[in-house]
């Protein structure tokens, strides 16, 4: 088995992984950086982010206001030291991208333009039309090409971390083209593997978002934090689940029920604002958790619109006019026309909430360090506790940058005075990992189909772990997922080729998703309160006495996971009321 030596190995080459790689290369050009990804960097799901990236830049705004919006938006489950660092670094990171060539939209005077976003009190979302994530990803990828110390391993699937002496010292990965497994001996590892939305059947997430990075860390003993907080984006296309960016509402789009009523005013986000004059932090510019929950109530009350794609509400952008739509929302117009046959210039578009983002993930501190020495994590796969119980739109693209760079710096600090690796011990671990794959190829007693297990997992998550949850449903999901994990041990590999075997990778991805789904559900069952995106019908109130804490889910092999808690870091904002009444409450 070939050994590849590196100083730092990065798993995942989306926004966070690329930003980390560039920071490492810039800070110390002598470092050998292995950037490992199961897809070419520009295929990473960062490319699908549309609306923009938040950072304070205008004179009427302040870091304190960005802090307050983020903490209240997260229903006080954010670690406030982390949020303070984030809001301070955000503008610098966005300027850095500007200096690297990102085509941000501009004001007439040539300065950077900002737009409105949900839950934000001021306009502070930098944007590149409605293709902000795409431009950020490509700017980072292209910028990374000038650093010879970044060695890319495109289309390598990461299998296991390599641990020795209580430290993470590398990983195993399979070259997808050849099926060859390679050992990466790395003095530090950064996981930037993205989210896990594909646990659910209806999601904005691309096919690649299967929780691989989360599972790598979880199985190596690192807890997954706050996994029960799953963000539903309120405005997905009802057939494909494709995202219609929050910028639709930032620009003035409104949500209507079957009677044409702007129903958000009936759920604590009113009174109604004037059409064409969106007001920050109220009505359609409330936070995503509240908007998705309002949809659920409209559905229960029979106020949704029946369409050929199921129950929906309508998003109306006609009053914006064709010129503004083409200038600011061209992708949205194109998506709705192609996939739904609806032109937003002339008709309201049916939408419904769709699984979009995992607030939880690999537990890290504000330095992006996990509890496992030598292992760091950043981006959606990580839970640095910026987003708390509900992420505000346009904070996550900046999170990739701020904490991608922070992970790199923390890794560099860690590398100082590190003892030499025991190569023989690592190779012994590597052989164990290789055996797991060999066993899958040689299995003859397989009875379970990958697609069958995957469908059962998705159905369970959709039915029991959605926008509103209760004990009975969650218990059912916990039981089902436990059984699915047992049955997974008998999964059949249909394709035994070594060359680009996507049957194999789907089997491995399913294993990751089952582990993530079980952790998520265990966290949701244990959290007997309603906070942010985690809403319990049987525990309808926030309970700060018991649950102003992060849930930490620990892997226990084939057994059920263990849940314990860690305190939230509060520096200056005590838990309060989330007010989206536009100052009318």
């Amino acid at each position: 088995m070939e050994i590849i030596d590196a100083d730092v190995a990065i798993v995942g080459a989306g926004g966070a992984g690329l930003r980390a790689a560039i920071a490492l290369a810039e800070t110390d050009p002598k470092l050998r950086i292995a950037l490992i990804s199961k897809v070419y960097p520009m295929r990473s799901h960062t490319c699908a982010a549309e609306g923009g990236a938040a950072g304070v830049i205008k004179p009427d705004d302040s870091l304190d206001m960005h802090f307050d919006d983020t903490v209240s938006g997260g229903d006080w489950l954010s670690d406030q030291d982390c949020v303070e660092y984030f809001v301070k670094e955000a503008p610098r990171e966005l300027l850095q991208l500007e200096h690297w060539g990102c085509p941000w939209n501009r004001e007439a005077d040539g300065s950077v333009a900002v737009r409105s976003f949900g839950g934000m009190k001021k306009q502070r979302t930098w944007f590149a039309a409605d293709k902000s994530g795409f431009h950020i990803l490509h700017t980072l990828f292209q910028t990374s090409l000038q650093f010879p110390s970044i060695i890319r391993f495109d289309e390598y699937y990461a299998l296991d971390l390599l641990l020795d002496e209580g430290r993470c010292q590398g990983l195993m990965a399979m070259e997808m083209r050849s099926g060859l497994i390679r050992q990466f001996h790395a003095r530090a590892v950064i996981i930037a593997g993205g989210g896990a939305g594909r646990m659910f059947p209806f999601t904005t997430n691309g096919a690649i978002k299967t929780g691989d990075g989360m599972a790598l860390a979880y199985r190596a003993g690192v807890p997954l934090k706050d996994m029960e907080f799953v963000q539903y984006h309120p405005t997905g296309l009802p057939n494909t689940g494709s995202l219609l960016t929050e910028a639709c509402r930032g620009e003035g789009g409104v949500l209507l029920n079957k009677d044409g009523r702007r129903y958000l005013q009936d759920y604590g986000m009113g009174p109604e604002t004037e059409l064409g004059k969106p007001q920050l932090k109220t009505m359609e510019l409330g936070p995503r958790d509240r908007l998705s929950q309002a949809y659920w109530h409209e559905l229960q009350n029979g106020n949704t619109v029946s369409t050929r794609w199921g129950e929906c509400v309508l998003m109306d952008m006609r009053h914006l006019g064709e010129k503004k739509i083409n200038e600011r929302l061209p992708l949205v117009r194109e998506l709705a026309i192609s996939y739904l046959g609806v032109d937003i210039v002339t008709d309201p578009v049916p939408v419904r909430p769709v699984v979009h983002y995992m607030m939880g993930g690999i537990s890290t501190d504000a330095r992006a360090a996990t509890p496992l020495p030598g292992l760091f994590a950043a981006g959606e796969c990580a839970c640095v506790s910026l987003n708390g119980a509900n992420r505000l739109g346009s904070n996550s693209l900046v999170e990739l940058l701020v904490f991608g760079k922070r992970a790199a710096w923390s890794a560099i600090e860690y590398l100082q005075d590190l003892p030499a690796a025991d190569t023989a011990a690592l190779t012994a671990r590597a052989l164990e990992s290789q055996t797991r794959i060999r066993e899958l190829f040689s299995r003859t007693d397989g009875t379970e189909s990958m697609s069958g297990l995957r469908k059962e997992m998705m159905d369970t998550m959709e039915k029991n772990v959605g926008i509103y949850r209760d004990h009975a449903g969650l218990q059912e999901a916990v039981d089902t997922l436990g059984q699915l994990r047992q049955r997974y041990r008998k999964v059949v590999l249909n394709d035994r080729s070594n060359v680009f075997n996507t049957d194999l990778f789907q089997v491995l991805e399913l294993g990751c998703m089952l582990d993530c789904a079980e952790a998520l559900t265990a966290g949701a069952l244990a959290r007997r309160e309603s906070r942010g995106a985690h809403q319990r019908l049987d525990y309808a109130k926030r309970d700060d006495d018991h649950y102003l804490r992060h849930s930490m889910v620990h892997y226990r092999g084939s057994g059920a996971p263990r849940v314990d808690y860690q305190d939230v870091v509060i520096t200056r904002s005590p838990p309060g009321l989330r007010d989206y009444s536009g100052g009318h409450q």
Partner: protein
Amino acid sequence: MNERMVQLDVLRYDPQVDDEPHFQHYEVPCKEEWVVLDALNAIKESIDPTLNYRWSCHMAVCGSCGMMINGEPRLSCHAFLRDFEGVIRVEPLANFPIERDLVTVADDFIDKLKRVKPYLIPGETRSIDEGEYIQTPAQLMKYRHFSMCINCMLCYAACPQYALQPLFLGPAAITLAHRYNLDSRDGGRDERQQVIATNEGVWECSFVGACSEVCPKAVDPAGALQQVKVASTLDWFREHLLPGDTK
């Protein structure tokens, strides 16, 4: 919702067992609003798990799922079944070696992207503390549509010159270089010209325009290449015919 049986002939190839590629016929029930990618996913999920192809976003932005559909380079997530009649022929992108089934070897394209120095080489250095470079909306519009390339490689599959001369840098790479050349913040054109104003660069292009016809993002690489040719010609005139001009 209406369903109909859709027939597809899909090119299959596994270098470990096949001497050469062959077509395999599939029939799969599809919803009327589906795209070709949905049909492939339905085949993989319920008929043949050994079929291999790349895909991710299903919204025409990640650039993974380019393939030849009835002989045309298309994104399979943006090729609607309603636009096809009869058997749909699906093959890997032309002009690239086949890795397996519909998966091509992309190394050559990735190498070429890197060669054109597709990153900002600042005209004047500026620290982060000095804030953003000023760039007016008009300056932004000069290059913005050339920055929309999703690297899907459809233009290489369509390009007759790339088919004949694999050393040709090709439409997307040259367009990306041009995107940075046109950026008011950039000063790296001279460095990039050494790569793109060459026989393997823009002069290889015969301006057939197939690249722009197949581009799913209306980037217009043919237009970019034409602009590069004109600008490079002006460079030549300046250097050779106007000795007084110090360039």
